[in-house]
C-alpha cells in the first residue's frame, strides 16, 4: 500500500504475484519505521499550514479549499503510516459525512438567512442586523460572513469529502464482507 516510499517494493510484490500465479491482493498495510517517523514529524506542520491557509485565506493566497485539502491530507498521511483500517475506525465514516453535511448546512443556511432577512443570496449587508450585538462596519460584517462560509462551509465540505473518498477507495466495493478483517490477518504474517 505504501507505494510512495521505495521504488523497488512494488516490483518485488509484483514478482510475488507472478510466482504465485494468482492475482492476489497485496497486504493492505506494511509497517514501515521510515514512513511512520516521517509522518510523525511532518504532520503537525502540515496541519498548522492547512489551518493557517483556511483562517488566513482572506488576507493571503490560499483559502479554505486548499486548506481543507491539506487538512484531509494529514489524515491520509496518518492512514498511510499507521494503517488505513485502523485510521478508518478512528475517524469514523459518520464523522466525515457529518462534516460535509454540516458544511453544506452552514453555507446554505447563511445564504438563505440573508434572503429571509430581505436581501439577496449571500447578501452580507443583511448581517448589519447583528450590529445590535457587536458594532462593526459593513465591510467587516462581509468579511466575517465570508470567513463563516469559507471555514465553516467550504473547508468542512472539502475535508470531509476528500477523506471520505480516500477511505471509500481504500475499502473498495465488496458487498458481503469488509476487507478489513483479512487485511489485518495478512499484515501479521
Amino acid at each position, binding site marked *: 500500500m505504501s507505494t510512495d516510499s521505495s521504488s523497488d517494493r512494488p516490483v518485488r510484490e509484483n514478482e510475488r504475484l507472478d510466482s504465485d500465479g494468482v492475482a492476489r491482493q497485496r497486504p493492505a498495510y506494511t509497517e514501515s519505521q521510515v514512513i511512520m517517523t516521517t509522518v510523525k514529524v511532518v504532520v503537525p506542520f502540515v496541519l498548522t499550514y492547512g489551518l493557517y491557509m483556511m483562517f488566513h485565506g482572506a488576507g493571503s493566497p490560499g483559502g479554505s479549499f486548499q486548506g481543507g485539502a491539506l487538512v*484531509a491530507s494529514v489524515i491520509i498521511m496518518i492512514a498511510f503510516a499507521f494503517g488505513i483500517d485502523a485510521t478508518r475506525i478512528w475517524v469514523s465514516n*459518520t464523522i466525515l459525512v457529518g462534516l460535509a453535511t454540516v458544511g453544506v448546512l452552514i453555507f446554505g443556511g447563511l445564504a438563505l438567512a440573508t434572503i429571509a432577512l430581505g436581501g439577496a443570496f449571500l447578501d452580507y449587508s443583511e448581517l448589519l442586523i447583528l450590529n445590535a450585538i457587536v458594532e462593526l462596519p459593513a465591510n467587516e460584517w462581509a468579511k466575517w460572513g465570508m470567513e463563516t462560509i469559507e471555514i465553516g462551509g467550504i473547508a468542512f465540505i472539502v475535508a470531509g469529502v476528500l477523506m471520505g473518498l480516500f477511505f471509500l477507495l481504500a475499502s473498495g466495493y465488496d458487498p458481503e464482507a469488509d476487507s478489513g478483517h483479512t487485511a489485518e490477518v495478512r499484515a501479521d504474517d
Partner: protein
Amino acid sequence: MTMITPLELTLFVFVLITAIMTALFRDVLASIVIFAAYSLGLAVVYTFYRAPDVGLTEAAIGAGITTILLLLTIAKTTRPRHDETFEKINWPAAGVCGLFALVLGATMFAFPAVGDPNAPAMTNPDVTVYYIENAYQETGVENAVTAVLAAYRGFDTFGEAVVVFAAGVASLIVLGREVFA
C-alpha cells in the same frame, strides 16, 4: 516582455517532458508518479505567473490528493506486468494531436502578453477594475480572489461546494457503503 527567462524555459521543458512521459509509460505506477511530477511543475508555473491561489490548488489537489487516490486504485486492483517500458506510439493519433496543437498554437499570437496592463481582461471597468478598486471597501478582505469567490460570485461557489458534496455522497452510494457504520 517577450523574453523568456531560463527559469520559465526550464519549467516549460519539465512540464512538457513529464506530460509526454505520462502518456508514454506503459506501467501504470510509473505513469502516476510522473503525472504527480507534472502537476507539481504546473503548480510552480502558476505560481511563477502570479497565480498562487491556482498554484496551491494544483499542488494540493493535482499533485497530492489525486496521486494518492490513483495509487490507492492500483493498490486495490492488479497491476499488469509489461516487458517493454514504453507504449508503442500510435503515429496517426500522434499526427492528429500534433495538428490540433498547431491549430491551437496559431491562436497564441492573438493573446496579449503575459502581465500586459492593457490587456482587455485587465481594463474591463465592470469586472477586473471594479473588483480591484472596490473589493476591500465592500468586503474587507485583502485577497481579491477570496472576495470574488466568497462574495461577488458566492452563488457559483455554493454550487461548486454542493457539487463536491454530491460527488462524495454519490460515491458512497455507488460503492454500497453505509454512512452510519
